[in-house]
């Protein structure tokens, strides 16, 4: 396999792993809030979170580029914080991937939290557990299948992204060139054998993920 391809695979896995990890941390409180709140903002926030699901990735990538570029408010913020500009960097890719995959992580969590309902938390409170204690000792274990689904979907979805990465990351080998981009390059260059290796690998990987997900959804006890 070509070094450039290997680099692309490693970069893709790093990107997907880091994005998924950060997303779980961000999406857990967000999904918890969405599952429990009666706030009038629930609808607006929920729709905003779901937006990346239906927007063409290029639209999302374009607005992120504008927002995070030197003339956008995001760019101004990162520059004044001394972080420089995010577009065409790996951190920029992470930010974009997180936004792109947000609904895939929030929704399974939100559904898992909603399915638990208020009763286990009330029981925990009458057994002297603080709300935070109850969250970790009762909600997290009960929502475990939701966390697994969220992590797998977030990871897999990030691995497969193309449009957003192209817009915000460019196609810089070893820096922002991810797997889907490498495949595109091979096809452009008529290197079908190389494209096959990567594309076939992706196909097998995606299938395995779905198989794994299916397995995980069968609850062990119950």
């Amino acid at each position, binding site marked *: 396999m070509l070094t450039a391809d290997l680099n692309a695979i490693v970069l893709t896995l790093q990107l997907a792993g880091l994005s998924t990890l950060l997303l779980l941390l961000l999406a857990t409180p967000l999904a918890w809030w969405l599952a429990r709140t009666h706030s009038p903002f629930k609808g607006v926030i929920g729709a905003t979170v779901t937006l990346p699901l239906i927007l063409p990735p290029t639209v999302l990538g374009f607005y992120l580029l504008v927002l995070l570029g030197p003339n956008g408010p995001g760019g101004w913020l990162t520059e004044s914080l001394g972080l420089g500009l995010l577009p065409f960097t790996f951190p920029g890719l992470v930010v974009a991937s997180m936004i792109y995959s947000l609904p895939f992580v929030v929704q399974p969590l939100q559904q898992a939290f909603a399915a638990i309902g208020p009763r286990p938390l009330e029981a925990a409170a009458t057994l002297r*557990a603080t709300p935070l*204690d109850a969250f970790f000792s009762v909600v997290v274990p009960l929502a475990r299948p939701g966390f697994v689904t969220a992590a797998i979907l977030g990871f897999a979805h990030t691995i497969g992204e193309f449009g957003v990465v192209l817009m915000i990351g460019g196609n810089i080998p070893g820096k922002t060139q991810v797997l889907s981009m490498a495949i595109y390059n091979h096809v452009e260059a008529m290197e079908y054998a190389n494209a096959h290796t990567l594309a076939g690998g992706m196909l097998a990987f995606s299938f395995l993920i779905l198989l794994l997900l299916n397995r995980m959804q069968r609850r062990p006890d119950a």
Partner: protein
Amino acid sequence: MSLDIRLRLDYPGFALDLDLALPGRGVTALFGHSGSGKTTCLRAIAGLEPAVRGRVVINGNCWQDDAQGIFTPTHRRPLGYVFQDAALFPHLSVRDNLDYGRRRIAAGERQIAAETVIELLGIGGLLDRRPARLSGGEKSRVAMARALLTRPRLLLMDEPLAALDHDRKQEILPYLERLHDELEIPILYVSHAPDEVARLADHLVVMDAGKALAAGPLGETLARIDLPIRLGEDTGVVIDAVIDARDEPWLLARAAFPGGFLWARDGGHALGQHVRVRVLARDVSIAHDAPTRTSIQNALPATVVALGDDAHPALTLVRLDVGQTPLIARLTRRSAHQLGLCPGMNVWAQVKAVALIG
């Protein structure tokens, strides 16, 4: 020692307006139809209904007082709560469910031996099981044990038997009676089943539409015929009595109470044992003269105290006193009229059926 509870809630379609002073020990039943506010009251005492305003003082400890801006969150109230559906944690074994609350109280508070509670509720054989593999009755018992192991100062029970069938109920009731006898702490018990109340409660609060219609000792409150809440076939009294004689050849036992005694089927009670006697209004009839040559074994001299309405306009409830002990009889209005019953009249109460409970 008392429970001082004042609760207010105004929602469209549902209002709660309670002002209760309840005894600081024994079982107090909150009794009423569904929707009468019993469960909301219990949840508010536990701090699970933050929208409810008022004041909750439990044996001197203030848990909520909106006038002073005091609201102790649920996890800092030393209470035990048994939910109707038991609410066991499905991801934990019975043992870990029991440990959940116990681990979260101060070490010095853990004097109550787990073995004692496990034995009291008969759940020793279930410890390694998951809640999904317990019967309804077993779940209730585990939930009770889990609550007791936090060493609560108040035990709140929300219809712990409502989800159970008749046989499972009979399985749990003896355990509840043991809790009643052995626990020093007050128990608030929500129920809409008159037989549970008659068996377990010392004190009764009758609720309807978010208000307390009556509150007082069980015997006294059950004997009131002026309450608009209708128990139908369950209308009747509960008398505290002592077994003072047995007629062994006929398998009967005699329960004595201030003012008289009643013969009942021998339930294997020892002489001198305290029992509750339940006498339903439909099983009491009235005669002017001491009945002779009748199959009825129990006839008591009584005084008519009052006549009141019953659910059907053809019927009337007659409140009687046998010595100091109240009794209720259900008659047709015609027979009351033909007997010329009026308050103060001396009559004979014939009791057709008597149940020894507890």
